[in-house]
């Protein structure tokens, strides 16, 4: 993905909700995109699948296996979706037709991209359900979506997403609606699929805890911009951008509290600016930033190398190093 921009219409004018995002994703790799609501992570994910609001304008470059997808026709996108890139999201219930069995829907997904007969498609569907950890795949085929528990529904959704062996899986908040113990199972399943299939995983999440254990690299987004990119290990060991530091500090951690002082969270002050009122020509995090200094109000910082990572912050601008 190079210089990807997604502009959405707000009050009659276009505003960049995703503003110049670059990243690479290799087979078997897991890259997490983290950020709070309104940072643009979901629009980014949808752009990668050619899905998005009709009013949105996508520019830049998305290449999957050498094919340029920005500007592709609806027909080309249909071939890419499911075949090369698949999507799972938070609410598996809305991905299924409630009146058709899970099995029939996975079979349909298999046959949408492959010229195979009914019985072969059925065999593949059962295989996918087994792969995603269905305890009894034969029986799973005959179930209706609403009869499945939240965790099994998400597994069935994954089975359907993997129906035609995509190279890339975009998982948009895949465990947010699940209980902690069940979410842990689904995340472990995603890890295994990555290893077994060489699946490239783009994990979209607001949950830094998930990132710590299930991503190789992390992209932190704020107000439509990438503000930090780093390996997962470095992000937690040495966060560079003040926003990343603030996010990590405000994360509730298990703690053995000893005094009333540790009841406090180190919260970031203020709120995420909405798209219509984002500060222009300055760092968009500056109004909330504890490290704010003169340059922050004058222009927008670029991504600068910061240790092993990169950060969009003047603290790392080599011109300002004295």
């Amino acid at each position, binding site marked *: 993905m190079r210089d990807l921009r997604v502009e959405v219409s707000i009050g009659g004018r276009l505003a960049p909700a995703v503003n110049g995002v670059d990243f690479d994703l290799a087979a078997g790799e897991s890259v997490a995109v983290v950020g709070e609501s309104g940072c643009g992570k979901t629009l980014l994910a949808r752009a990668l699948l050619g899905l998005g609001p009709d009013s949105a304008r996508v520019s830049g470059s998305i290449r999957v296996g050498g094919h340029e997808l920005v500007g592709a026709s609806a027909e080309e996108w249909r071939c890419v979706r499911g075949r090369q890139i698949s999507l799972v999201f938070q609410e598996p219930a809305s991905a299924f037709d409630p009146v058709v069995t899970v099995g029939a829907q996975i079979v349909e997904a298999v046959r949408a991209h492959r010229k195979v007969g009914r019985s072969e498609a059925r065999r593949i569907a059962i295989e996918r359900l087994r792969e995603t950890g269905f305890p009894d795949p034969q029986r799973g085929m005959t179930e209706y979506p609403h009869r499945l528990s939240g965790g099994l529904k998400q597994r069935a959704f994954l089975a359907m997403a993997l129906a035609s062996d995509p190279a890339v899986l975009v998982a948009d908040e895949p465990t947010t609606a699940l209980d902690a113990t069940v979410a842990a*199972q689904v995340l472990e399943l995603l890890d295994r699929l990555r290893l077994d299939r060489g699946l490239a995983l783009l994990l979209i999440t607001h*949950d830094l805890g998930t990132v710590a254990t299930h991503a190789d690299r992390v992209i932190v987004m704020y107000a439509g911009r990438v503000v930090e990119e780093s390996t997962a290990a470095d992000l937690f060991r040495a966060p560079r951008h003040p926003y990343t530091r603030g996010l990590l500090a405000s994360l*509730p951690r*298990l703690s053995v509290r*000893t005094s*009333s002082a540790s009841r406090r969270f180190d919260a970031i002050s203020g709120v995420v600016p909405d798209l219509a009122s984002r500060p222009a020509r300055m760092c968009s995090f500056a109004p909330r930033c504890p490290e704010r200094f003169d340059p922050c109000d004058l222009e927008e910082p670029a991504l600068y190398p910061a240790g092993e990572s990169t950060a969009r912050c003047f603290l790392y601008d080599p011109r300002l190093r004295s």
Partner: protein
Amino acid sequence: MRRESEAPLVSARDLTKRYALRAGVFGHGQSFAAVDGVSFDVLRGETLGLVGESGSGKSTTGRLVLRLEEPTGGRVLFEGDDWLALSGRELRRRRRDLQIVFQDPQTSLNPRMTCGAQVAEPLSVQGLARGRDLRERVVSLLEEVGLSAETARRFPSEISGGQRQRVAIARALATRPKFVVCDEPVSSLDVSVAAQVLNLLAELREKSHLSYLFISHDLAVVSRVSDRIAVMYLGRIVEEGSAAAIVARPLHPYTAALLSAAPETDPALRRARIALSGEPPSPASPPTGCAFHPRCPIARPRCRLEAPPLAPSFEGRMVACFFPGELVPGSR
């Protein structure tokens, strides 16, 4: 630590809520327990955390304590008085002492009333203030929760999610309650905003000597805000103790698994995960014996047959397990 001399502000004893199953050919006359014999005390100025997954009955328990739903059985004592025996009129008068903050201020606030009117409502309903006094009280409540006086004129749709939750908190605090049930108060908020709201709740608690029943699915949040924690599974409390003790050494295998599933971003502190198989069962068809046994990594034959009672263990803790303390996070 609990002092014997201190009478609890709120006591729940054997609280039970049964719901009828939809009457069908086979379901006729059957019912299931969403909350099944739950007992706890909350002291003055104390926060009791109630943690559990969906279907554990934690939210229902909060609603029963406030009598937003009538329990099927059990008792609730508030300052020693039988809360469930109060007549409608007496109940309305004393409601000012007990309030609730819900998860989603989007739905708990009325979209057609200004924020000021919603904060004023409990005060005027209770006859505590009117006219100019009422307007001044509303402004000072809004300022107390970190909002500007100008917010009073705004509608909920015109402010952010974090600000809406602050309005909901101002509304809950309007009658100067002694006890507030916080039902997943930050679950719908972004991390940085959630931290601000949790800080606000802690400040208000210290300033007004409030007691909280803090309900959440998130053990990490609960461990930070609570003095004591009760862990619920399928309608029952399976473990209770001081927050510090539970985090340091869980006694129930379910608590141990929850602790190990909690996100830990510091790789040095990351615990080995205890993998639970399956998902929480439906309260409508609970397993035999110990409700946790089908998912429990250390279940023995006895656990299938007999339900362990919630019984005192060491350090003043309570646990419902035949083999307490056997499963330790990081031990496998």
